[in-house]
């Protein structure tokens, strides 16, 4: 129970829904006649409308980035450590917008929404979505909110890919790009982990060929397994060692009954998997991992990232974490290298952190200070 909020919390927030009746042409060729985006805002837009910040979520994220939906909500939004009054993304200074991406399962149009043609849920017939489509739909949301240019667009992991796409697709609408623990494109190893996760879902009988919503079934086991695989790759070996080690949750090594032995890490992973499968839609998960796999910033620019970045006008902050092996520092250095060659204004830090890829969500002191210092330096109009 969070009865009284700390001064650094945005407090109670209420999601809003934006309906777009104008059609959206997707990269895959499909045209969405209309769509909806659910979003939250924190702080207030100033008179010149130049203090807006867009938060782009990662694979399993959503629009609820900060604050609480009710006094009974146990946990605040997923990036509450960073968003709030006096926090690095300071809501006393900035007007923060956080949305659930198209294809998501937390209120924006996606596989769980009704297909207007069939009047049934889209399910796996929902069109394939690319990072570029997300950015285009986010630009529509910016139009709706009368935000001509973002003071900053910020995202980690898959969110960072959206940030880079913003810098290229709408160079005059973004002034600072904060790309955290991300990559120009996924490596084969990275795609492989996504494919294992997808196969776990696809082979679950409850998946019913993607039509589980109509069939009243659910690929709970498959989705939980997908999350377990993902989760392991978001942590570092050291982080798992210090968090769980070889601690037992039940059973004992002494009685030689290996059947009764359950390691803490097993129990933790199963719990995470179960929790996730109760909150997330399997078709959305497949869609999001596909968007990750297919992202390749340079593809439209003769496979040349330098050429891709040459049109950008914003400043860049690139951050990576030492123990992140899913989006390793060398992936971030590729981004930095391309930005330098494209003569862009870039700052890069490699943060010492034990937490692996998950570090981008956590309040690690040097990372926290970096975000604060960078965000504090962003110039906005002082009128309110």
């Amino acid at each position, binding site marked *: 129970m969070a009865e009284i909020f700390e001064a650094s919390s945005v407090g109670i927030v209420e999601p809003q829904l934006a309906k777009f009746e104008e059609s959206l042409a997707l990269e895959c060729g499909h045209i969405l006649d209309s769509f909806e985006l659910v979003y939250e805002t924190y702080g207030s837009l100033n008179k010149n409308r130049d203090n807006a910040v867009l938060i782009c979520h990662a694979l399993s994220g959503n629009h609820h980035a900060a604050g609480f939906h009710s006094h009974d909500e146990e946990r605040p939004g997923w990036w509450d450590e960073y968003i709030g009054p006096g926090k690095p993304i300071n809501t006393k200074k900035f007007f923060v917008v956080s949305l659930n991406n198209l294809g998501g399962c937390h209120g924006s149009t996606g596989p769980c929404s009704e297909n207007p043609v069939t009047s049934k849920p889209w399910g796996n017939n929902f069109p394939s979505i690319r990072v570029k489509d997300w950015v285009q739909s986010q630009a529509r949301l910016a139009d709706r909110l009368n935000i001509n240019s973002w003071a900053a667009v910020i995202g980690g992991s898959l969110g960072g890919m959206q940030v880079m796409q913003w810098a290229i697709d709408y160079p005059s609408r973004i002034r600072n790009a904060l790309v955290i623990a991300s990559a120009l494109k996924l490596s084969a190893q990275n795609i492989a982990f996504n494919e294992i996760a997808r196969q776990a879902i696809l082979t679950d009988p409850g998946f019913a060929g993607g039509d589980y919503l109509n069939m009243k079934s659910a690929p709970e086991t498959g989705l939980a397994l997908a999350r377990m695989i993902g989760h392991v790759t978001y942590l570092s070996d050291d982080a798992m060692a210090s968090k769980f080690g070889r601690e037992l949750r039940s059973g004992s090594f002494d009685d030689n009954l290996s059947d009764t032995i359950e390691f803490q890490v097993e129990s933790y992973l199963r719990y995470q998997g179960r929790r996730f499968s109760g909150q997330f839609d399997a078709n959305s998960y497949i869609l999001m991992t596909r968007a990750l796999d297919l992202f390749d910033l340079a593809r439209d620019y003769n496979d040349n990232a330098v050429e891709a970045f040459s049109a950008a006008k914003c*400043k860049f*902050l690139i951050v990576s974490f030492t123990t992140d092996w899913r989006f390793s520092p060398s992936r971030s*250095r590729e981004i*930095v*290298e391309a930005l*330098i*060659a494209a*003569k862009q*204004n*870039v*700052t*890069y*830090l*490699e*943060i010492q952190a034990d937490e692996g890829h998950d570090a981008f969500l956590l309040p690690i002191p*040097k990372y926290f*200070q*970096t975000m604060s*210092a*960078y965000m*504090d*330096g962003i110039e906005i109009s002082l009128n309110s």
Partner: protein
Amino acid sequence: MRQDLTQILSWIKSGTRVLDLGCGDGEFLNELKKKSAIEGVGIEINQDDILRAIGKGISVIQQDVDEGLSNFSNLSFDTVVMAHAIQVVHFPDKVLMEMLRIGKEGIVTFPNFGHWRCRLYLAFQGRMPVSRFLPYDWYNTPNIHFCTVKDFEKLCASRDITIKSKSMIAGSKFSSFLASLWPNLFALTAIYRLAA
């Protein structure tokens, strides 16, 4: 503002691209930006320094100069500066060549170990010189490659590096006069403007 930096400022034209190796907290690039509207990039390894540079709005790449500068393409900068940092790198000669590959010109400043005080200290104390400017003991110093004015010029000659101009800082006016005659004895800090 450090005297060597004032000298470097006068050598850099406005509107040019400057790479500062070992930029520290970005003080120099910040002055340079204010005075001559240059486009500056710093390289630094110390994160606390980088954070202070971010606070000044300076763009800094966290990178270890000792691990190479291959991520910077040929002649992608007008000037590459290394102020009071050449003595801390593992391979000063290689870094010097890299500076002149990346930049049209390079500017290097370093403390002159040939200064008469250093010589006297070593001669009479019989120990590695420790001073206000070089406060470290031999075993914990980041300065692993001290050189004298003569040493540096010999290295430049051996690598066919052109010395376009140089300037010696010596403290008082009289010392400066002496340093102009005998730089290796009287210069505290040597400043060189180099080209490949």
